[in-house]
């Protein structure tokens, strides 16, 4: 005879800690003395207990297996809780754009587009709306694209006082170097990126190899106009 007083909480612990719904057969593979069909019975008993003891949760069977859920009666509390706190999920695109602006500021949208390889129009606008970045002037190059920098609010979030406190390229390299014996990170120096951008820009413009490496990237007109209208 199986000692259910020990087995029952073991099943409970497994379902509780599993990071995805767990099936009878997986439970059986861990608690071997319990057959898959007995698992079902144990879970029924557990649910009866939760109900009698007036607990806020129960075990629910869904396609993939068993999982804990809270009772619907308490859903409004949970909703209220999650509503009241900022979830803090930056979209990948937003985070990328923000990172580029943070470390390359001041920077124009065409430059951001170049580094990301996609149009960042929408993301830049959202970041502006959320007051994480600001317009700080215009590029002196042809096209006079708007330049973006991070805001005070942005810095505050990271607990720093000034953009000069942000890690420098060399420090970034040190921090991210060859952590897991990967290939060492080759972080192009800012001038190198600038060069690269100049080079790519001129390719976009249909020119030959750039003869002037020092020159700032030219912004390709049209896309900028949209922003300023």
């Amino acid at each position, binding site marked *: 005879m199986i000692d259910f007083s020990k087995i029952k909480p073991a099943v409970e*612990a497994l379902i*509780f*800690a*599993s*990071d*995805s*719904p767990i099936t009878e057969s997986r439970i059986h593979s861990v608690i071997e003395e319990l057959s898959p069909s007995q698992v079902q019975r144990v879970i029924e008993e557990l649910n009866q207990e939760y109900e009698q003891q007036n607990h806020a949760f129960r075990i629910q069977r869904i396609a993939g297996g068993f*999982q*804990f*859920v*809270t009772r619907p009666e308490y*859903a409004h509390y*949970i*909703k209220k809780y*999650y509503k009241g706190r*900022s*979830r*803090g*999920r*930056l*979209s990948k695109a*937003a*985070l*990328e754009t*923000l*990172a*580029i602006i*943070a*470390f390359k500021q001041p920077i124009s949208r065409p430059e951001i587009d170049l*580094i*990301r*390889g996609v149009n960042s129009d929408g993301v830049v606008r*959202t*970041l502006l709306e*959320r007051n*994480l970045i600001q317009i700080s002037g215009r590029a002196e190059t042809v096209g006079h694209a708007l330049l973006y920098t991070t805001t005070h609010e*942005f810095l505050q*979030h*990271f607990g*720093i006082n000034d953009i000069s406190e*942000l*890690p420098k390229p060399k420090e*970034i390299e040190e*921090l*991210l170097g060859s952590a897991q014996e990967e290939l*060492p*990170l*080759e*972080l*192009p*120096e800012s001038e*190198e*990126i600038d*060069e*690269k951008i100049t080079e790519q820009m001129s390719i976009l413009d249909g020119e030959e190899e750039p003869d002037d490496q020092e020159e700032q990237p030219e912004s390709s007109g049209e896309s900028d106009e949209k922003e300023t209208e």
Partner: protein
Amino acid sequence: MAYRVKLKNFEGPLDLLLFLIKKSEVDIYDIPMADITRQYLEYVEIMQLLDLEGASEFILLAATLIRIKAKMLLPRPEPEDDEDIVDPRLELVTRLLEYKRFKEVAFKLSDFEERRSLLYNRGYLEEIEPSEDEDIELGENVNLFTLISTFKQVLDRLPKVTYHEVEDVKITIEEQIDYVLDQLAEEKSVAFYNLMMKLNDRLHVVVTFLALLELVRRGTIIIRQSVPFGEIWIARKGD
């Protein structure tokens, strides 16, 4: 005496030094420098033989130990009032004690970690509703490191522009022993100054110095200085 050495158990030179002090059952406030330094150098030599990583840090402390040992051998000026004499070992002992305490905390942290590893958080949460529109608030999950990592990922997508070549400096006491013996192959004796002048960096100087000590210990060479502050001459023993 036969040791089976597992050097990776030492987190660093201070860890090794603490171990030697403990093993020799000596007072940390009264470290017998000659003895401990000798033992320490033996380990460092093994490290060199095994070509272990981080040997240069161990060599750095070796130099400190030798310096302290030398200071203690110097005749001390007559104390006017004996309160003012600073033990040359004081700084080292202070460092050792500080390190020892953090090591102690680390062991306790390890216990905490062990206990915590037995408690599992709830694994699967479904209640959190995915937000519909793109949430762009900065939350606790976005810190500077996230920002840096993201920046790196973006840059990694850019075509690579440059390649740096970093040369790994590898230098062992044995190599420097060979160097010293080479120098002594042609000349009967070599001036210490000339020997060191040919080396191009500090690490080489330190390791060569250790090599000299080792050669003296083995009885291969002798070191002479005829007048105080005069040139130091290195010669093969028996020549």
